[in-house]
């Protein structure tokens, strides 16, 4: 079973509010991924890190979304100004360096009212 920890499990925000969620990857996993899963089970890759460095991110995350994985602290994903369309399950996954398998946390379900 995966040992990726995500907090909080549920997050409710009003439009325009900041939303921040955290992820602790499995011990020894230097690569962290963030995905967005919408209600239609469509997944969108947002960003990933190797240790503290961004490996890849989509255009969307360069605007309202920001993420970081500081040393010795949880990784985080923050939406600066939430919109209704951001309502989704945000999944964090981690992997070994070069390891194809990604192990997922339970997700943070964001609802933007």
């Amino acid at each position: 079973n995966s040992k990726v920890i995500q907090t909080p499990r549920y997050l409710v925000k009003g439009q325009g509010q900041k939303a921040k969620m955290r992820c602790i990857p499995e011990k020894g996993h230097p690569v962290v991924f963030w995905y967005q899963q919408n209600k239609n089970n469509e997944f969108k890759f947002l960003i990933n890190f190797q240790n503290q460095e961004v490996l890849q991110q989509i255009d969307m995350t360069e605007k309202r979304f920001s993420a970081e994985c500081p040393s010795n602290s949880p990784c985080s994903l923050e939406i600066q100004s939430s919109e209704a369309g951001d309502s989704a399950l945000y999944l964090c996954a981690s992997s070994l360096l070069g390891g194809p398998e990604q192990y997922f946390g339970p997700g943070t379900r964001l609802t933007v009212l």
Partner: protein
Amino acid sequence: AQSVTQPDARVTVSEGASLQLRCKYSYSGTPYLFWYVQYPRQGLQLLLKYYSGDPVVQGVNGFEAEFSKSNSSFHLRKASVHWSDSAVYFCVLIAYQGGRALIFGTGTTVSVSP
């Protein structure tokens, strides 16, 4: 373009019956493929993986999958389902360009009836 298609959005089977979930992929080269399962209010759990070699791979809880390069398929099977197998199953491809993001199918919801 790389993609994964799961043609069946929902499947209902009786407990004890066999199950097959279909998956077609589009990828130039030899893909790395996975099946993940998502139980209600939980994250994704890895069921099994295929990288190379024997096209039939075994996973957890009695699941197996068969890779076919000629058909671009990676179908999941289970000989006898249990009510606890009710969940959403995702076929997943790994994209090795850039940061190795996963490409997901839209899932098949499996309901096991008593």
